[in-house]
């Protein structure tokens, strides 16, 4: 009874004071020490709650929904390709030139394949324009043992690891040499040989997959990590949150690389989340994180290499948010000028081109020049046009590929269906196109 009386008094006095000013609330409590004596353990400053020791404070302090300043962004090269400082992992001439070659390859490949789709020769394509640095520099910082789980805007690591332009073309045209056996739409590449898991259209499903694979690598005690890419939009999926939470609990060696390019089809980041981007979400899950200039190849290279070491040696996940801009449309099914200003797109395309910025740096080092540039671009165009021509004229995959790979061992029901289809084609050849090969 006595306890409740004093608590009643406490609330009564609080009521009176609150009429005058809500600011007085804190001092009201401080001025009424009798209430403290009546509540058990009121003088303890800490308690061992499940999860760890927590200090008590008499103030009702809300953590702000956003900090005053956005988390700053790690950058090595300025817009002009000049070094800002020496806080980066040194890159040899050989590696730098190879990186640049691959970035240009990716850029030209995208430009040409986009046109091929517009000409109606392939059904679909999605470009990576503006994100060449993220694609290539991240791959360059990894080893072939590190396992890659892409979304669908990361063909760069495949190119870096040796997937050829012919193989790209074969997949886009889904001919009989497509190592995906014509099973998927264009740009859904995958290759075991290159430790690059097949692209799936589902958004962010690859994020928990990467954690599971990282767990497997840890169990095998391999000197390797897994890396997974996703966009700003992908970070809204439940899979992203489950994966980060899990990775921290499981202490899995995985790198989460978010390409925050400002747009998820037509949804700008302001409609995607209200946090300061994606980097701040890492700490919420107990994941170490960094924000990086996504258009700066050297910054990406350094951050990914550092993250890889932490992931493997400390057995922890790391989140890298690479800020960039999706210069191209979401895909060939999209016209982004319908929802964003053309001058915005152009500014990013010209003034922030990661390829041009890196080129300035390697030229300044004496590792590149105009002649090399035009030779490279011409040679790539030739190669691409040739690969496309070859791919376009190759046969499509055989009928058997409809029925294989559903299970490890084809069940009798599928074998029967396959035979039935083949018999039907033989019996009614005029009902089927000529390029169906039984």
């Amino acid at each position, binding site marked *: 009874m006595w306890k409740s009386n004093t608590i009643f008094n406490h609330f009564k006095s609080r009521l009176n004071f609150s009429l005058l000013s809500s600011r007085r609330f804190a001092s009201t409590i401080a001025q009424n020490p009798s209430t403290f004596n009546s509540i058990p353990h009121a003088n303890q400053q800490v308690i061992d709650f499940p999860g760890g020791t927590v200090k008590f404070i008499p103030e009702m302090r809300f953590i702000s929904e956003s900090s005053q300043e956005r988390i700053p962004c790690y950058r090595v090269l300025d817009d002009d390709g000049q070094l800002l400082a020496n806080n980066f992992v040194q890159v040899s001439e050989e590696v730098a030139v190879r990186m640049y070659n691959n970035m240009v390859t990716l850029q030209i490949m995208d430009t040409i394949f986009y046109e091929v789709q517009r000409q109606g020769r392939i059904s679909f394509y999605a470009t990576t324009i503006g994100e060449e640095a993220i694609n290539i520099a991240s791959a360059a910082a990894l080893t072939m043992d590190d396992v890659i789980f892409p979304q669908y805007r990361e063909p760069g690591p495949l190119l870096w690891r040796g997937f050829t332009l012919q193989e790209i073309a074969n997949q886009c045209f889904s001919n009989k040499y497509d*190592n995906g056996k014509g*099973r998927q739409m264009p740009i859904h590449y995958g290759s075991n040989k290159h430790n690059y898991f*097949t692209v799936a259209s589902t958004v962010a499903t690859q994020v928990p997959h990467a954690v*599971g694979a990282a767990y497997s690598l840890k169990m095998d005690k391999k000197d390797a990590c897994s890396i997974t890419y996703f966009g700003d939009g992908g970070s809204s999926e*439940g899979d992203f949150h489950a*994966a980060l939470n899990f990775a921290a609990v499981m202490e899995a060696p995985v790198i989460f690389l978010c390409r925050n390019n400002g747009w998820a089809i037509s949804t700008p980041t302001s409609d995607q989340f209200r946090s300061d981007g994606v980097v701040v979400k890492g700490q919420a899950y107990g994941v170490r994180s960094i924000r990086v200039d996504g258009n700066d190849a050297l910054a990406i290279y350094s951050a990914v290499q550092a993250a890889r070491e932490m992931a493997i040696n400390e057995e922890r996940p790391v989140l890298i948010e690479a800020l960039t801009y999706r210069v191209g449309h979401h895909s060939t099914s999209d016209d982004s000028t319908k929802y964003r200003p053309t001058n915005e797109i152009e500014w990013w395309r010209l003034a922030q081109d990661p390829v041009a910025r890196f080129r300035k740096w390697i030229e300044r080092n004496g590792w590149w020049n105009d002649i090399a540039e035009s030779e490279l671009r011409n040679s790539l165009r030739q190669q691409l046009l040739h690969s496309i021509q070859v791919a376009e004229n190759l046969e499509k995959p055989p009928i058997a590929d409809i029925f*294989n790979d559903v299970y*490890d061992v084809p069940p009798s029901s599928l074998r029967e269906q396959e035979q039935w289809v083949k018999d039907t084609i033989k019996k009614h050849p005029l009902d089927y196109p000529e390029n169906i090969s039984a």
Partner: protein
Amino acid sequence: MLRAIRHKSIHPAFCAFRAFSSAAKEMTVRDALNSALDEEMSADPKVFLMGEEVGEYQGAYKITKGLLDKYGPERVLDTPITEAGFAGIGVGAAYYGLRPVVEFMTFNFSMQAIDHIINSAAKSYYMSAGQISVPIVFRGPNGAAAGVGAQHSQCYAAWFAACPGLKVLTPYSSEDARGLLKAAIRDPDPVVFLENELLYGELFPVSAEVLDSSFCLPIGKAKIEREGKDVTITAYSKMVGYALKAADILAKEGISAEVINLRSIRPLDRSTINASVRKTNRLVTVEESFPQHGVGAEICTSVVEESFGYLDAPVERIAGADVPMPYAANLERMAVPQVEDIVRAAKRTCHRSVPLAATA
């Protein structure tokens, strides 16, 4: 890896001694699953378990009892509450060479992970053109328990069995549980393993062959639990027990029922079912789940496609009521098939074969 098996009628003091001398002739489904997991984990270090409460709690239904102590926290993982998360992580681990056994506390909760089961597990081998195989098992109780309401009682056999790339198994007895779970774990394809909570505590006889650690049942083969010649009754999981009871009742009335325990919903053993129908000429399909687009509908189509001329009566389909499961005990009883429903259906198929001339 035998545990002391309790016989309720035997005084506990004699229990341990009797267990050895009777050479383990009976086993609960729970112990069958537990021993199968234990043996497969022991045989292959890549097999590991994941799920809510599978470790410290010994499993929500005690199926994984003792395994955390034996194999340690790296191989028995207590997961946060995120079905989508741990299903995705299991798939990723399977992609990279481990053999996860993922437990859903009930398959009702698998709905939160069904994207990973279908789009990541079932389709990856095909979509990757054979580069990514997914040797994962998703297991847990499925279908109605007792008094748990709509969100804990649905049977998902038909949903998963509709999807190419998955295998779907439905054990009934302890022999089924051991043999099919071992087969599922060893299989390179993703397997959905649908148990039943009410069967966990049931005792079934098991032979020495079943208890051997190399025991395995083939996936895709149904078992004829009871031979008969007048009517074929197909069932899976708990309904097999009901079908057998119905067969006893029918036998007293001169109707000899052949009871088929499907064991495997995908692949469905169409040849065993059709061979049986060609012998008996009558078919009753039994399932606990909702009727529309269910397992019974698929079996009926298979028989109509392959054995239409042999049918002497329309196929009878016994299924659960087409309503979300109610909670009150009397309502729940009406919402699931009972033995009498099966008996009446079998009689309907038999009486329809009485020629019209006999009534003149």
